[in-house]
């Protein structure tokens, strides 16, 4: 695989992300109330929780698409909210994000979407970019689909194209919002492998929002369970799976009855 030519020293490689007392209300409703979370510079953190509990909102705070009402997000000791635009963009160079909706630019082909970041932020020649685009698309099982428009793809294919775009620049921090939702079980397993391989090969961080407990146990080193606006439980997948807390146990087992009362 490709060598990366980073100018940064090895010990600076990787980002430590610390979230402190993060609170955010949206549409008059508190979504995140007091989130405290440390994301280590290596390994994969799974974020699980019920639909609508604020997982996507949390991810957007980490990359500065949303700003906290109170509390802060620290990246390598620098507060995200205090950075000026240049520093924020410099920081974002180290991130790659897959949106829950894939968020492909629909006026561009799949190939152009994957190439976009490299065209604007890297001094790479056109053939180098084309090679890298092809490599990334092959990795997610979309070999040769460079010239398709996003509107010509299925939901799962869009997701994978979004994944290829997120990892195209070898980010140090990868934020994946439900990477396997909408994929068939075999493709889910393939994508899990891709994520696992990237994290190991680049020795970086991934934050993976997921509903898929099987992916959690295959790819995550740590799991955080977001519930009622706080990190309700955190631990290794084994610890979370074995949790005696009734709320966690109900979520893991996926039972309708228990302390969590789904509002119908």
């Amino acid at each position, binding site marked *: 695989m490709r060598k990366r030519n980073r100018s940064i020293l090895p010990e600076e490689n990787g980002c430590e992300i610390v979230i402190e007392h993060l609170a955010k209300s949206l549409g008059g409703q508190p979504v995140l109330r007091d989130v405290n979370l440390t994301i280590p510079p290596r390994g994969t953190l799974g974020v699980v929780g019920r639909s609508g509990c604020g997982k996507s909102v949390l991810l*957007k705070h980490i*990359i*500065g*698409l949303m700003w906290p009402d109170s509390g802060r997000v620290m990246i390598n000791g620098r507060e995200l909210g205090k950075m000026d*635009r240049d520093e924020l*963009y*410099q920081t*974002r*160079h180290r*991130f*790659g*994000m897959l*949106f829950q*909706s894939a*968020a*492909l*630019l*629909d006026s561009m082909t799949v190939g152009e979407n994957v190439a*976009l*970041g490299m065209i*604007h*932020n890297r001094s790479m020649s056109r053939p180098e970019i084309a090679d890298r685009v092809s490599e990334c698309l092959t990795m997610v099982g979309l070999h040769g689909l460079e010239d398709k428009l996003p509107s010509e793809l299925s939901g799962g294919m869009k997701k994978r194209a979004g994944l290829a*775009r997120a990892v195209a620049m070898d980010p140090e921090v990868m934020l994946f919002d439900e990477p396997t939702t909408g994929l068939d079980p075999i493709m889910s397993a393939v994508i899990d492998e891709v994520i696992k391989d990237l994290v190991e090969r680049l020795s970086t961080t991934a934050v993976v929002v997921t509903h898929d407990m099987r992916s959690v146990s295959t790819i995550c080193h740590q799991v955080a369970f977001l519930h009622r606006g706080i990190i309700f439980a955190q631990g290794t997948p084994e610890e979370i799976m074995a949790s005696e807390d009734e709320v966690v146990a109900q979520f893991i087992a996926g039972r309708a009855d228990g302390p969590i009362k789904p509002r119908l």
Partner: protein
Amino acid sequence: MKIRQEPFLIRVIERFGESFITLSTTIGEVVILFFDMLGRLPKLLRHPNLLLTQMEVIGLRSIPLVIFASMFTGAVSAMQAGYQMEGYAPPSLVGAVVGKAVILELGPVLTALVVAGRVSTSIAAELGTMKVTEQIDALETMAIDPVWYLAAPRFFAGFLMMPILVIVGSTVAILGGYLVSNITLDVSSPTFFNGVKMLFSSYDVLINQVKAVFFGGIVALSGVFFGYRTTGGAEGVGKATINAVVTALVLILVFDYVIASVML
């Protein structure tokens, strides 16, 4: 039941106050966006492709519509001038009247109104859709500044192309007036164009172009502004589009009056 005066009055004042605050914050936001885009101008000029593409989309592709609308307006104004002056003034004055009316008023206003209908709406709908489908957020995560990439090229393209469109529109309108005078009023070509020349002044052309510059800015800025702050799905995009075109139309008419009263 007795109507109590005070609460009603207070309510009215409150409503006024609220509208005033909303209006002031909106104006503030527009001004911020304007200066944000102005700040991106140097970078935009260094990579002119984005700007040139939008100049084509917004400017060149509006030319057929502008020609169509101007041709008819010029024709109708000549017809009406001929009708109104019948018996009072010689038909040779039709050229003078049409030329003056087109250069000072009809050319810029009519061109701006039809271009507003085409361009403010398309900018607002395009940016609005990108906003609600997280495509603008996706650009942010790739450290591509959306103000530079999306907003500024559209704004400056509208700003630069409107004067050209107004020249095209004014010329075609005078030609339309000429055709009608020549065919139905039996005004010969030299008579018509001598009439146009008789009242022609370069100061009028200056007014024509000052209006064009302002109208171009208004059309593009309202599209960009309302597109950029779209929220809430397809309905939100619809609202943004309406807001953009209504604001553009109203401001064109208001500024037409303001410029006329300042410059005449």
